[in-house]
């Protein structure tokens, strides 16, 4: 059977439906809304792009299509038919084989690990079939691997910019405390002691900043998702702050914060107490 290349949809009212109940179909929520259809309506479907040989179907319900990131922005105008109805609708009268053929058969194995052996056996028994394990990578996976890399690259640039910002802030903070450091040194505190204090301060600031960032991300998560779900009319989840992602963000931010504190304070700590006080 060739692919169902197009659907011609003519909505009619329930009252205009023929007496013999047409076969039931499900239509996607997007299609229902786009064509102002209602459950119970009878519609004419055709496999011919020009609308030839239409057949009536009754809308028995609606469904939310499985979100597909590969079709972002394209409304899911879909309908689900019972297989015999679809085969009858799309069969080519000139090709008797088309009434008894399908594009693919999905198989669920009792043991998923048996997939390679099952495929080998089936290939030997029915040569000419194209067998594919659903868990295998395909082009769409490649697309999302690429997007993942792209996001990572953007994240690295953002972290670099943030680090410079952080360093600038710490330089200013340290500069303002030059006199205080001089006094601490003059009253007897050692460099090591002040260094530990700077380290502790850096740790506290970095931890607070990282935690604030995670809380902000969690707070914005819902808003981002709702906006993009509305924008693309999809149930896809765009942003998900998982514990792993939060941990990774903290693991990057905290050492960077400490490093910025130390780098900013380094010059100050290396100067003598008198030199600092004479400023």
């Amino acid at each position: 059977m060739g692919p169902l290349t197009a659907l011609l949809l003519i909505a009619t009212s329930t009252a205009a439906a023929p007496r013999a109940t047409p076969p039931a179909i499900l239509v996607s929520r997007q299609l229902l809304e786009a064509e102002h259809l209602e459950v119970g309506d009878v519609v004419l479907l055709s496999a011919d792009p020009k609308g030839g040989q239409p057949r009536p179907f009754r809308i028995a319900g609606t469904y939310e299509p499985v979100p597909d990131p590969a079709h972002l922005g394209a409304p899911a105008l879909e309908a689900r038919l019972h297989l015999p109805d679809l085969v009858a609708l799309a069969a080519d009268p000139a090709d008797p084989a088309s009434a008894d053929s399908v594009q693919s058969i999905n198989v669920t194995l009792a043991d998923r690990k048996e997939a390679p052996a099952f495929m080998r056996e089936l290939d030997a028994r029915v040569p000419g079939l194209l067998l594919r394990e659903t868990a295998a990578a395909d082009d769409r996976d490649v697309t999302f691997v690429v997007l993942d890399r792209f996001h990572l690259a953007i994240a690295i640039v953002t972290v670099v910019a943030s680090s410079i910002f952080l360093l600038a802030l710490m330089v200013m903070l340290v500069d303002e405390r030059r006199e205080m450091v001089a006094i601490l040194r003059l009253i007897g505190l050692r460099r090591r002691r002040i260094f530990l204090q700077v380290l502790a301060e850096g740790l506290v600031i970095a931890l607070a900043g990282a935690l604030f960032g995670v809380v902000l991300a969690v707070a914005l998560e819902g808003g981002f998702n709702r906006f993009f779900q509305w924008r693309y009319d999809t149930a896809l989840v765009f942003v998900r702050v998982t514990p792993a992602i939060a941990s990774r963000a903290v693991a990057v931010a905290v050492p960077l914060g400490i490093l910025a504190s130390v780098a900013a304070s380094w010059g100050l700590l290396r100067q003598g107490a008198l030199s600092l006080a004479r400023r």
Partner: protein
Amino acid sequence: MWTFALRSLARQPGRAILGVLGVAAVGALLFDMLLLSRGLLVSFRALLDSAGFDVRVIAADVTVAARPRLDGSASAVAAIRSLPEVEDVVPLAFGGARTDGRDGAPLELFLLGAGPARRQPWIILQGRAPDPAAGAAPELIVNRNLADRLGLHDGQELILRGDCGHEPAATPPVRFRVTGRASFPFDDPRALTAATTMDELRRVCGTEDGDDADILLVASREGQGPMAAVQAIRARRPDLHAYSNEEVVARFQQVGFSYFRQISTVLSSITLFFGFLLITVLLTVSVNQRFAEIAALRALGFTRRRVILDVLAQSVILVGAGGLVSLPLGFLLARRLEAILHAMPEIPAAMRFFAFEPRALGVHALLLMVTAVLAAAYPMRLVARLPIAATLRTEVVT
């Protein structure tokens, strides 16, 4: 004013350098996001225009996957070619074929058939286009990938077995003679593509009696423009759907890769906010530390306007210098990001996610300038409201 602002910044070089570097980093990202926001559209438009056809005619206004073929293409071509607004028309049909690789394994390739026309929808790199009036052996032109994969050279023979999908027929193999190499605008980097005449494509696909095509490419007559050609085609053949390249791009803008436009908008906003925050903090701290100095300058006769402009000038210098550094950084980053994104399957090799256009440079400069002014607003307000006598007294007492 500028010299004074420069000297103020030079007094704390570490801080100024960090400010410039920070703006450079966010400016580079901003520049890249501006390139990304329209990159695909710009390069898609360039691809559409590359072969010299500015109007596309199809059978139905539906997605590519569901699009029916255009029946009676010969009469449609004749009708369109007779229009005074039209310079040339070429019908195109797409199919597939298999051949044997060097190792004997079957190799699938994309096969394109073009009707007779003065222009061709590909760019000849070497040799010549297939000639419909060729002698015994039908002719074929191949892309570089296919030529390299099979070690093909001009005059060599290649046997193709049709695998056109839309007609489930077992077709006999056809022996072609390679006439040259061509570049096909929409090829992805790994595409194995070959092109022949429309008649030979139908022969390979086993549809010799057919008269259909997938698309008609139309070149409007010079001086008339694509929209005049589109209107004329719609009037002559209302059953067909004609679109100018501009309309195709507009439709692509609605659905194709809108994700990248969204992400570029979000990241542009974030980077601008980031730059604004950085400069505001730098200038505010700097102004706070210079209260006594500013009050003294005011007491010496500097006007309020003069010291306010000094703060603004510092902001403009920081953002301006950062913005200048951000351009080469942005270009380098864009090349890296382009290489990452181009690993996506089925993206034409000539397509660019980050396409430069002068407009992006202008928008980049404008956004950074607005950021500089906004970032200076709060420290300028602090300076404007500074009480001279009270500040001097406080400074002397402390």
